[in-house]
């Protein structure tokens, strides 16, 4: 009986206040979408880290025609220089950091290049001669890159030592910055949402002050009086959160899944299912924000 009564009160409150309720839904929707976007970027970063960090290598590029680095003063790498480098890689001082390494010849480099850029017209203008040969090293601990770099940079026949991880780090820090921006926008929007929810609940309490006054007089408990108002805010915010979750899923499904993953088939994008991990968090966040702000408002404007 009491439950049915409270539900009825909520229904009438939502109907009476429909414009405000719609605006609460929209504001929470937008703010939680930004929160979710930040979350998605983080998921994407983790996904790419997991995918790439297994694959990234330290590459020692060897001198080729036209190399201008200090180690290349003698022109393209000679077979002796190459052997020396290989011996150095196998020496115990270096080998303890290295899982394994391969030599990639100019022809192999050309083949990989062709595979990687198969969609791009650049393939036609590149010849094997233009691509340097290299040693590809899989590190035991990718953090120890500095040791390899110091050991090999000054060796004759070495053009440059590149840690592919550092190229990725640059991408990740850009994505981190983007998610920070999303979080700050979300912060402003959430403040907006809290204030709007407070105003809505205040209006709702005001328009029903007759009822609440009578409820108080006949001895209705605090919960029965306040719960309809609090749930009103919570329901509106949860609808907003559900819309936000749906939007994130749609972005993951249509934009990442159908569009971006076709453009960049090598990149590991998050799946739409993964964004659903964010949904409960958004629902809880939206609901609790609304609950807390309505509770605080009622404490001020609804005497019990």
């Amino acid at each position, binding site marked *: 009986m009491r439950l049915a009564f409270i539900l009825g009160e909520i229904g009438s409150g939502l109907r009476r206040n429909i414009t405000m309720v719609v605006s609460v839904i929209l504001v929470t929707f937008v703010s939680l979408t930004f929160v979710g976007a930040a979350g998605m970027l983080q998921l994407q970063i983790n996904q790419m880290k997991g995918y790439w960090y297994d694959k990234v290598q330290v590459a020692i590029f060897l001198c080729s025609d036209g190399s201008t680095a200090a180690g290349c003063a003698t022109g393209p790498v000679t077979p002796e220089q190459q052997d020396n480098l290989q011996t150095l890689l196998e020496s115990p001082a270096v080998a303890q950091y290295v899982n394994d390494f391969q030599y990639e010849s100019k022809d192999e480099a050309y083949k990989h290049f062709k595979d990687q850029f198969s969609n791009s017209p650049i393939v036609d203008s590149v010849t094997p001669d233009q691509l340097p040969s290299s040693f590809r090293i899989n590190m035991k601990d990718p953090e120890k890159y500095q040791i390899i770099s110091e050991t090999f940079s000054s060796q004759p026949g070495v053009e440059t030592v590149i840690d592919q991880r550092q190229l990725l780090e640059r991408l990740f820090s850009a994505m981190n910055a983007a998610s920070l921006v999303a979080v700050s926008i979300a912060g402003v929007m959430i403040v907006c949402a809290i204030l709007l929810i407070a105003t809505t609940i205040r209006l709702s309490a005001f328009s029903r002050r*007759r*009822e609440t006054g*009578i409820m108080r007089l006949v001895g209705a408990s*605090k919960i029965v009086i306040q719960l309809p108002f609090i749930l009103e805010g919570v329901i509106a915010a949860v609808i907003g959160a559900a819309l936000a979750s749906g939007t994130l899923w749609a972005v993951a499904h249509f934009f990442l899944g159908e569009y971006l993953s076709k453009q960049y088939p090598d990149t590991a994008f998050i799946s739409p299912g993964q964004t659903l991990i964010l949904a409960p968090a958004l629902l809880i966040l939206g609901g609790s924000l609304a609950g807390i702000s309505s509770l605080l408002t009622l404490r001020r404007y609804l005497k019990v």
Partner: protein
Amino acid sequence: MIRFENVTKVYDQTARPALDDVSLEIDRGEFAFLVGASGSGKSTFLRLVLKEDRASSGAVYVAGQNVAKISSWRVPRLRRGIGVVFQDFRLLPQKSVFANVAFAMQVIGKSRSVIRDTVPEVLKTVGLEGKENRLPHELSGGEQQRVAIARAVVNRPGILLADEPTGNLDPTTSMGIMGVLDKINQNGTTVVMATHDDDIVNEMRKRVVELKNGIVIRDEARALYTSMIPVVGQSRRLRDASGRDEAQPPAPGEPNPDSGEEQR
């Protein structure tokens, strides 16, 4: 049922107290009129009983409990034992007569079947049988007040507080309302009624407690609206209080304590 022990209520430190050292006892089943000019402390008295306000000093006992010691989450239970009726009825305009009365039961969690049984019974007590489905604006003032009374007593409170319940009604209708209140009192409910209506008080011949400037100046059984006893028993303290009052006109915003009589 209601006991005031040296109760003082001060709203504003600079003005005189709304109630000044009031000691009073109203027994179970009694019918008492609370009379006095506007601003004499009648409403404050009722608010203290309901724990809408806290006494500045002294103790208020309702049904044997010191209301100051009731924790805030138990206040609803206190209020369930007290019905309240107002001058302006305070009905919910969009709810029918039945729904208005049922509302008081719904909000404290009474079951649907209990409501279905109790409400018609109470409506019959107040003389509204057959009007369950009317809306408040379709009723006369007297009928609306009967609905309000039905709502106040539907949960069978031990005490009924009525704050000028006949203030908006004509004399004949008022007498009808008094009949209803009397009937409720006969059933064992303690009734405390604040009023300005001298005809009613004179007609009913019940206990009369007269307040002036927050002080009880008369407490007579089976009395009239105005005292028949010449003012000789007035205490020194009261004379002092009135003297102070003359020297210091009422603060702005506060109704003139003497104007209530003339307005009637």
